[in-house]
């Protein structure tokens, strides 16, 4: 790791520890992630971390981007989810499939935090079966007209642009849509169990006119290329986000168990507490090693990297759920109380088992991968 990257990650830790972690509960309570903090994340180069330097980015490789994601995600899931949607989902799609004019138009401002983007795929009636989207586009001279609705779109409540996936019945395309365009109506979704400060919203598109040049990628490549690429990068980001929750929960239970006394003894001395800590340590260490391997496969553009990323996302979301559950258990009654971060980590962990592919749909893909990969190996 170069000295520049090392310094960058050190500054990210400092930033997370002073500007994000102490306020995580407040963000959730107010259901707002401060605009000023987003700007500061841009200035600190987190939002363009994977973009090349010519687009004001840091050009981080997959491993170091993973470390950054973990650092931010340990402090606060909302801040991490901004990286996931803005940098990983939308940023990676533009970087991979946008033309030079599009990259120059959006990436530098995205890196600086001057514009915020969100990825608009999911619809009220279309979740896992993403290829069945109903939001439509109709061609009209130099524009397309978009109609339909999207739901559960993270950070769309404050987004300047949405990468909208739409179909004309035969083809699927992805368009960058300025949220100020007439016909775009964004309605915040309240009452969520977690991700309360992530500006998750429902969006209506009513005859929204979008310039044709805002289409990202080839005509008809919206699902095969844009969605696949975006979700692949999204899953990689979530994988590190899961590790972040698991690590934060482990640290919380270690610290609590070394301070809390019951029956005249520190609770870490009880073997059933030790079991939970031992399992968490073992799961985190092995998953971290696996994530390092996945980062290396992604760096090589290895043909297994997509499937291995899916495994990583599946695994880390599982251990995040298990370890945050155990962390609540170790905290006893205090684990239910929002003055203790484990209460929030527990709720945030559950989200990761649903977004960017539910655990169940990922298991389908993983089992198929295994059934192919390990068939007749020694025959």
């Amino acid at each position, binding site marked *: 790791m170069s000295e520049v990257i090392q310094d960058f990650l050190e500054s990210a830790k400092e930033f997370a520890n002073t500007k994000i972690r102490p306020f995580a509960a407040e963000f959730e309570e107010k259901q707002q992630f401060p605009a000023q903090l987003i700007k500061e994340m841009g200035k600190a180069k987190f939002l363009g971390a994977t973009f090349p330097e010519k687009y004001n980015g840091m050009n981080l490789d997959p491993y170091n981007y993973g470390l950054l994601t973990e650092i931010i995600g340990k402090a606060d899931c909302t801040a991490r989810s901004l990286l996931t949607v803005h940098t990983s989902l939308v940023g990676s799609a533009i970087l991979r499939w946008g*033309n030079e004019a599009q990259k120059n138009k959006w990436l530098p401002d995205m890196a600086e935090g001057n514009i915020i983007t969100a990825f608009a795929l999911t619809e009220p009636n279309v979740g896992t079966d993403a290829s069945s989207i109903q939001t439509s586009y109709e061609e009209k001279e130099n524009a397309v007209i978009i109609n339909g609705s999207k739901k559960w779109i993270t950070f769309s409540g404050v987004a300047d642009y949405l990468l909208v996936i739409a179909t004309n019945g035969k083809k699927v395309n992805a368009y960058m849509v300025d949220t100020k365009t007439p016909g775009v109506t964004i309605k915040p979704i309240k009452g969520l169990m977690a991700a309360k400060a992530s500006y998750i919203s429902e969006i209506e598109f009513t005859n929204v006119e979008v310039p044709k040049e805002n289409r990202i990628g080839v005509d008809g490549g919206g699902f*095969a290329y844009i969605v*696949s*690429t975006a979700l692949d990068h999204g899953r990689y980001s979530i994988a590190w986000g899961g590790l972040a929750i698991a690590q934060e929960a482990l640290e919380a239970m270690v610290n609590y168990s070394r301070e809390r006394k019951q029956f005249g003894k520190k609770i870490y001395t009880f073997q059933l507490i030790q079991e939970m800590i031992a399992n968490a340590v073992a799961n985190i260490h092995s998953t971290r090693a696996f994530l390092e391997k996945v980062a290396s496969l992604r760096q090589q*553009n290895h*043909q297994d990297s*997509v499937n291995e990323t899916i495994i990583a996302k599946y695994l880390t979301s599982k251990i995040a759920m298990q370890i945050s559950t155990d962390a609540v258990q170790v905290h006893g009654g205090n684990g239910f109380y929002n003055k203790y971060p484990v209460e929030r980590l527990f709720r945030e962990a559950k989200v990761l088992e649903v977004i960017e592919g539910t655990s169940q749909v990922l298991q389908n893909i993983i089992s198929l991968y295994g059934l*192919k990969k390990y068939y007749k190996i020694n025959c």
Partner: protein
Amino acid sequence: MKEKIVKFISDNLINLDDEIEIKDDDNIFEKGFVNSLFSMKLLNYIETEFNMEVDDDDMEISNFSSVNRIEALIKKKTEVLSD
């Protein structure tokens, strides 16, 4: 080259039937041989394995729809590179 392409497709088949045969002109999408992740994986594979970049103009799904068409695309791109 053709063997590598067939092996890659075979490694990504969603059908586990041992008897399945991928013919050179089979449309692998229409036959339901692969899932939605395949196009992106195939593109990454081609670009890495054959050290080439597929331009937007060549990104049509039809260029990746069969073993013969994939081979033709790779040949076209690598010939351009060697010219």
